[in-house]
């Protein structure tokens, strides 16, 4: 029997915007996004079950019962010294279970994007910082400076929801959008097409962001490679007139530069300084693997945002020692439990150590893990809570299909 359902206001778990205005039609366990023609629809639909989906636990290449896989995991962990739980994206309940499991077995816990997280929080941990959120930006910002193009490719709907919204509580005649770095003509056109705004694109090497901001803050008109004098004057004029300036970036965009931390620090300092006489704030865009959910929950439960080791009831935090990449590369852990409920990329498996994956059914790997347990996707297969990029807002995720997969929480609580 076919059962068809229309679900309005689905909250999307697949990037840190967590848009909650998606409507989908489900037919049995398949679903289709009603709002067509967006990149997001494709992405959301890619988590439908298909012939390649793995819906039964596997030990190596062999299909096994869940109970058998669980037993195998218990034995594996018992026989090893150091276990790392590597988070590739999971919701709050999953994280709570990760932590309670880790505390019983003295595991290390890290998020795969920790290095980007540390780049952004470095400012909060060392200097002053002015921040803002999506709704403030939508309504209040009359000038938005975007550093690097990843902001727009990672969170595609930032454009229509925040940068050029249809409605605003405090409308300005025209919003000024300043793009710093290389933006494709298509993206520029896309922004333009969505609403009333002026776009200025400075094709500046991101390494020069610090120098550029220094020029903005002084009367100096010295020039940088990629920056015309007329452009500098124009931007200065725009910013001088603006009453609420928002700067946004995504830390992973700076990874190719010589000193990402320095760039972020320069942006934040520039914004802080503007507040002496006007208003301005930062709104970094976090990664798409529930990075904020992870750092928020770990912070309140342990005091540290990532890279922690449970040690008999207390936590030790060390960004270098408990950096998952390093631990795996240098084989300083014997078992890695990958938790990956929303990742769409290939999961990197280092076959020199034991790999256990709790992942969604469409997970793909660079090589076969020792054990794979398919788990549901929060927001598709079960309800949950995730945090948005601006941290201050968290959203409720719904359940839209029933393919009888356990959640990460179910599995870990069972193992604990």
């Amino acid at each position: 029997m076919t059962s068809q359902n229309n679900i309005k206001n689905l909250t999307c778990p697949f990037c840190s915007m967590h848009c909650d205005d998606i409507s989908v039609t489900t037919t049995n366990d398949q679903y289709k996004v009603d709002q067509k023609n967006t990149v997001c629809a494709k992405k959301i639909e890619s988590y439908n079950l298909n012939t390649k989906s793995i819906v039964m636990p596997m030990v190596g290449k062999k299909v096994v019962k869940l109970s058998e896989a669980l037993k195998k995991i218990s034995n594996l962990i018992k026989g090893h010294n150091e276990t790392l739980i590597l988070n590739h994206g999971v919701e709050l309940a999953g994280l709570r279970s990760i932590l309670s499991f880790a505390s019983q077995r003295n595991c290390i816990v890290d998020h795969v994007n920790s290095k980007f997280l540390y780049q952004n929080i470095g400012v909060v941990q060392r200097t002053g910082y002015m921040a803002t959120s999506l709704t403030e930006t939508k309504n209040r910002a009359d000038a938005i400076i975007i550093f690097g193009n990843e902001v727009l490719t990672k969170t595609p709907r930032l454009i229509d929801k925040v940068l050029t919204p249809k409605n605003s509580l405090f409308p300005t005649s025209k919003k000024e959008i300043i793009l710093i770095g290389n933006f494709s003509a298509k993206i520029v056109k896309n922004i333009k097409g969505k609403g009333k705004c002026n776009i200025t694109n400075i094709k500046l090497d991101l390494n020069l962001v610090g120098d550029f901001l220094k020029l903005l803050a002084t009367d100096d008109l010295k020039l940088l490679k990629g920056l015309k004098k007329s452009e500098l004057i124009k931007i200065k004029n725009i910013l001088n007139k603006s009453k609420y300036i928002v700067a946004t970036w995504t830390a992973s965009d700076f990874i190719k530069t010589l000193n990402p931390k320095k760039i972020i620090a320069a942006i934040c300092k520039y914004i802080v300084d503007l507040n002496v006489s006007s208003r301005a704030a930062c709104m970094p865009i976090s990664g798409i693997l529930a990075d904020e959910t992870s750092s928020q929950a770990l912070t309140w439960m342990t005091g540290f945002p990532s890279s922690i080791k449970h040690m008999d009831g207390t936590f030790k935090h060390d960004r270098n020692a408990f950096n998952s990449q390093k631990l795996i590369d240098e084989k300083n852990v014997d078992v890695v439990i990958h938790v990956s409920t929303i990742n769409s990329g290939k999961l990197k498996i280092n076959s020199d150590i034991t790999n256990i994956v709790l992942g969604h059914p469409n997970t793909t790997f660079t090589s076969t893990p020792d054990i794979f347990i398919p788990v549901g996707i929060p927001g598709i297969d079960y309800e949950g809570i995730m945090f948005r990029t601006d941290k201050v807002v968290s959203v409720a995720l719904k359940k839209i299909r029933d393919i009888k997969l356990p959640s990460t929480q179910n599995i870990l609580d069972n193992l604990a």
Partner: protein
Amino acid sequence: MITQLKSGNVYDPHNKISNVKKDIFIQDGKIIDKKNVRSKVDKIINCSDKIIMPGAIDLHTHIGGGKVNIARLMLEEFHNEKEPGYDSSAIIAPSTLKTGLKYIEMGYTTCFEPALLPINARQAHAEMSDIPFIDKGGYALLGNDDYFLDLLRKKSSQSTINDYVAFILSATQSLGIKVVNPGGINAFKFNQRALNVDEKSKYYGITPREIVEKLTRAIYDLGVPHPLHVHCSNLGIPGNFLSTIETIKAANGLPIHLTHIQFQSYGNNGDKGFSSAAVEISNYLNKIENLTCDVGQIMFGQTVTMSGDSMSQYRNHNHAHPNKWMCMDIECDAGCGVVPFKYKDKSFVNALQWAIGLEIFLLAEDPWKVFLTTDHPNGAPFTSYPHLIKLLMDKTFRNDILNQLPKEILNHTILHTLKREYTLNEISIMTRSAPAKILGLKEKGNLSEGSDADITVYDKNKKDIEEMFAHPSLVIKDGKIVVENGKIKEYVWGKTHTVKPDYDKSIEKDLGKFFEKYHTMKLDNYILSDDEMNSLVGSPVYVNDCKYKRKQ
């Protein structure tokens, strides 16, 4: 199972019991009367050398939500327990686990987060759900949100405002409403740097007085037990006692609770332009019936200040110690600021702040109107409560410390002339019965039959009162022994206290449209249901009664 606490010296001010030898019986998590003990007593605990009080209640402590988590993140260096030199007494921005452990070890069984941003309610409750042992709740922030200010600008009726307030209480699962720097946080977003009680905000043209008037009225009309919880305008500014008095007047005689009043009782006399106005404020407190306050005592040492008041936190950021800070504008809803701070006993200003807080305590004629808080962690971490109690109960101890502070402060405070020493009964009032009463928690803060068996048992033989309050010999939560002689016996998880006055659901239609147009999430997603609280957030909801049926 029935437990008997046998012949302890009981302090139960709600029932006018002060230092009376008595037995307390517990069954199924509740207190029962001796006459209703029908089966055999399973466990008898000899309390002949013990003091028994209801579990303590902290009605103003920042324990969950965005700004608390920012502080944790910012001050990471204060919680690496495995670092050499780690100070285990330092609880600067503690984790949820540590918060629960430290509170329960001191015999606190119920705590309230006073600055719950509606848009951040899900997070605040999720954090608090992860605090073991205690019951909890929050006060939702209003008065700086654009929706509310627009209602005022449009001259909406009081009844519409009441609907909105009741909606917020319900949607955010809160027990009360708080206003922080009324209108000021919003004005800061428009680059206004100060807003006095009768000053119009530039954009909305609304004064803080109007905001306080409307909100106190709404709370009164709806029958919400806890009065409007107010963090006044001009926090920390010398001379601000005048705006504090104007804020009191803005309530027009309706109930109002002024929070961390120490920070709002500053004069500007003397060559340093900073003096105590505790006497002036206390006169009001003693005179006006419907006025209550908590103190927000400061203690010397490192802490972190966190507040929804982004306007004043931005102003204070130059004093950050260690030198880092953060302010945030939040979702057309509110704001926040986190600034670490070290109160120094050598500093004239900090020493006077310390004295002002104590003056307010000691000048209060009625302990039912003044609550013991440090505005954790703004004045000091909550772990300093036992020390604060000793300051109130022991004037020699107090004066010894006062004598070590900068001499100049004596020209600006009358603390050295105050001889009062609080009694155990008064301490029991201000930390138990009075907060329960002002919050409308009928089953807390007393040892009446049917009340929650949240009980703290202290060792009478302890010579040092600070030591006695820091380490109760027994802490019982919902009838279970959770702490015994300083050791955790069992982990239990509390519930979330709310209040849900009626409202006309049609306000949700208007709000739905507002969200659709101006927010970046749907109204549906903003509303926290009881189900979600239970299943996803992780804390069951307990709905407390309103005082009476809604008036308009």
